[in-house]
């Protein structure tokens, strides 16, 4: 936990919120979208999180041809109980709308099967689609506006 304290003391609000969300939600599913348009910032935060949690945060990079968020996460989960899962690449998938539609419909499966906080990086364009076509899913989680911490 020392690492967590150090980073928390860094006073970087975004990282602090993410670390608190991980810490509070052990053994429980929670859904958190990380809104960020700046790729460099998003990489910087990922690096920082990696150093504070070593390998405990499972990272998933969706390929542009990904068809399902749920399947990609469950495939990674075989035999591991991660501390938290962080999903990258939703902004670059080809079938964004259909991925979001399906995720919206089967959202209960996420909470039934995943007992950890799930973080999903999104940009403006993904955020718009989530609010418009996956409102149930959106209403289930919170969005942390990482960009906002830059201003």
């Amino acid at each position: 936990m020392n690492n967590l304290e150090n980073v928390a003391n860094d006073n970087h609000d975004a990282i602090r919120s993410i670390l608190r969300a991980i810490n509070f939600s052990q053994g429980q599913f929670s859904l958190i979208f990380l809104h960020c348009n700046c790729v460099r910032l998003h990489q910087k935060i990922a690096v920082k999180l990696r150093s504070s949690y070593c390998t405990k945060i499972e990272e998933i990079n969706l390929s542009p041809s990904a068809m399902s968020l749920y399947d990609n996460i469950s495939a990674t989960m075989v035999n591991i109980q991660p501390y938290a899962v962080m999903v990258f690449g939703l902004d670059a998938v080809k079938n964004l709308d259909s991925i979001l539609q399906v995720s919206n419909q089967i959202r209960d499966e996420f909470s039934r099967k995943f007992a950890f906080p799930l973080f999903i990086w999104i940009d403006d364009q993904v955020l718009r689609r989530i609010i418009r076509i996956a409102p149930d899913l959106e209403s289930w989680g919170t969005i942390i506006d990482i960009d906002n911490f830059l201003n």
Partner: protein
Amino acid sequence: MDITKSLYQACNPNKTLNSNNPEDKQRYIDFSPVRGLEIINELKRTITRLSPDSPTCQLFTGHIGVGKSTELMRLKSELETEFFHVVYFESSQSLDLGDVDVTDILLAIAKEVSHSLEVTQIKVKSGFFQTLFKDVINFLQTPLDIDFEAELSVGIAKITAKTKESPKLRNQLRQYLEPRTASILQSINRELLIPAQEELKKQGKSGLVVIIDNLDRIDNSPKANGQYQPEYLFVERGEQLKALSCHIVYTIPLVLIFSNALGRLINRFGVDPKVLPMISVKQRNGEYYSAAMTLLQQMIMVRAFPSVNWQQSPEKLALTTKIFDSPRTFDRLCQVSGGHLRSLLKLLFRCLQSQDVPISRLCLENTIKEQCNLLSLAITSDEWELLRKVWKTKTYRGEEQYDILLRSLFVFEYRDDQGSWFDINPILLESTEFPRDYDYKD
């Protein structure tokens, strides 16, 4: 566990309260006095008082996150105390909600009912389904290991699991089953539902009720024939959905309530769909409604202090200031939620990610601004225009361009003695798209 962490977990917006779980039961707040309608009571009365012995079919819907599943779980537990055998299931577990047909729903009901009966030691054998399974396997030409003597639910589960994986197989199955809908329906009634109810009555039960949750999530996409899926299922095929010989409660997509198919829907089912409204935190005249505010605050405080009756406690203020820097911060949180229960939990959930309790006013205002900015990113300039209209007139026109406003939670619906009225999500009032002279009470 420290209170920030336990409150955080209790506010997780993806959790549905299950009234069979004692901890959850404690957290349940009966909002019916301030919703403007006693929906669950009406649904229950129809079954227990008006028609306990002959089947009823009722329709239920509501906006995302207003507490539909929580209320249906309560309906289940109240019916159980009146000795009904209640089968509640989430259709999203059995069905592919992007593509549903009537036989899928009928089979899902048959599966869930027979499974739940097996648990209570009631065994139902269906000759029709044994034959049907054999025919289906022949028709699909796919190897399926079904023990035809085994329980009905197992056979259905195996077939539907197979077809859930493969849209092609599902289509084939559907082509086979759809022309046989009438006989499937008849057999579910004669070989499952009617004998089951006779058995249940022997065990001292009052009857059988099936509650189908989440069907409101089916895609609003056009079918091959150009008809939209919700209208196709509940209007075109409504006759068959209501023909089951037990009490049924379907959740239906909200979009039907605002569509011009509503009249035909009511005709088909012979009942008005029941719509669960938001909590009227504010009244039509713009004044805050203190009874509603109190219940919203109780909903938070029971999560913070599960064993304390906050409302009656002599320590009320002291307890409040353990969670918020002042009672005004607490008021502000409840007001800005617009009486939308999940929004309330989400805002607090987000605040707790930033700060330990007591939550400061600054933290709350930052969260409100953050959420307003994020929501605003999804709103087009045409939609801002519509939102300003809703805000001024407190009315909402059921036209296509308005659909998205309700679905995306930009607009909330309330009920009072005069019927429905509408307002925009109060979070959006923080946007510069709105003039600053609205009646924001500090």
